[in-house]
């Protein structure tokens, strides 16, 4: 176990997560629902889940959310990103560890996207003091399949490539 290499990998993943999330802001989302987005940051989360511990995964997501909130959308959206990001990371980690024989990374990513959007809408409902979850549920589920498949496929390819090259081995 090489702790230094591990720390380096974590830092690289955090930087990548931030960059990729900022990059995503340029891509327009056709669906006007609060909180719904492509979720490219999810790719990094999944890579972290495959190669690192839960604690490291959560740190990566946490720091990504904070930095992105400060740099782009302002601190008001932080509760949304944190709720969505951390909860979906936790669920995806559980699924990957316990259920990876039934779910591929694509399936796990879809469930992660659903969790992410649901959590965001729950926080939105609390802030708005009005239930908006049910109203958005159908479109939210469909967009979760699409975004989940996209990020899931990219993650799968990346994970396979990393495994093939052995980049993260020996941590």
């Amino acid at each position, binding site marked *: 176990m090489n702790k230094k290499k591990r720390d380096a990998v974590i830092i690289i993943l955090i930087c990548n997560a931030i960059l990729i999330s900022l990059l995503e802001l340029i891509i327009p989302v056709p669906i006007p629902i609060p909180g719904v987005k492509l979720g490219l940051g999810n790719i990094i989360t999944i890579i972290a889940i495959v190669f690192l511990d839960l604690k490291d995964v959560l740190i990566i997501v946490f720091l990504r959310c904070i930095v992105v909130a400060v740099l782009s959308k302002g601190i008001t959206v932080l509760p949304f990103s944190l709720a969505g990001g951390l909860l979906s990371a936790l669920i995806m980690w559980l*699924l990957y560890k*316990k*259920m990876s*024989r*039934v779910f591929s990374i694509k399936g796990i990513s879809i*469930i992660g996207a659903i969790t992410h959007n649901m959590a965001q809408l729950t926080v939105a409902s609390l802030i708005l003091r009005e239930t908006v*979850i*049910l109203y958005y*549920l159908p479109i939210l*589920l469909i967009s979760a399949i699409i975004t989940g498949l996209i990020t899931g496929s990219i993650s799968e390819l990346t994970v396979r490539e990393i495994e093939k090259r052995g980049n993260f081995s020996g941590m």
Partner: protein
Amino acid sequence: MEYGEQDMKKLFYPLLILSLLVFSTGCNIGQSKPVQSEDFALGTIINQEVYGANAKKASDEVAVKIKELDELWTINNQGGDINKLNNNAGQGYVELNPETISILKDARKIADLSGGVAFDITVAPLVKAWGIGTDNPQVPAEDVLKKLVTLVNYQDVLVDEATNSASLLKTGQMVDLGGIAKGYIGDMAIEIYKKNGITSAFANLGGNVVVLGNKPDGSAWKVGIQNPRGQNGEIVGVVSVADKAVVTSGDYQRYFIKDGKRYCHIINPQTGYPADSGLMSVTIIASSSTEADGMSKAFVLGLEKGMELVKRYGKAEAIFITNDKKIYVTPGLQGEFQFEDATNEYTYIQNR
């Protein structure tokens, strides 16, 4: 790749949980349909909405009962109990339906709360003289009213429970249950619902609302309070209630305008004139619909004395709307009252 039975088993629970999660949010739309009914009785529209297995039976039972009592109590119905009582005024006891005896007793109890200054069922001779709500309302001469006011005294309604009979002490005295019948029937409807195992329902007796339990989804019933100067259905606020009666008395319900003056159907038993107390409406929220109906006649007392009466009664919350479009709400109701005035004409006076 091959998938063993074990994998399927592993898959089962997460999917089950996922679908439960989704459906628990989705289910609310698929509520069981209520039985809704609309009847004409008591000179008004009766709406019911009843949920549950016996809903149809319960609402039919209520409708039948209302028609029955309507016949007994309508003042102009020949052979009805109230007609009999009035015709025999000053001539001793007449035997009446036990239900009539019961409402007369309730009327006495409520009148006692205000000493008859707000609510008094013997106001009927005055109601008849004014004729408000009939085809030819009129402003009676002052000396006529003076004479009629002397006939108004709820203590002259004598009730003998042992023989199920009642009498009016003086000739010319008359009883009108208009100010309490809808309230009483509201309580009765709730009893019938309960007897049929219903846990969620409402009945709207021409604006006198009674609700049983919560809505089937567990939330409180939202009762809109009529804007006294708006169109029908235009509201100034909403109260959220469960197991309560919501009764409104207002000057807009029945009235006529003569020489630019508005005369409403609620007669002040003390003066003989239609109430003119600076209020447009009083809404009472209480567990007993009979008592709420009676208490809503605090309308004739005006804001200060009316509020005092509600406070003295102690078992009700109230909404008072004054002529200058201010809305006053008792402290206990402020959490459940939501001020919603689309016209922007009303002011909600919260600190009182």
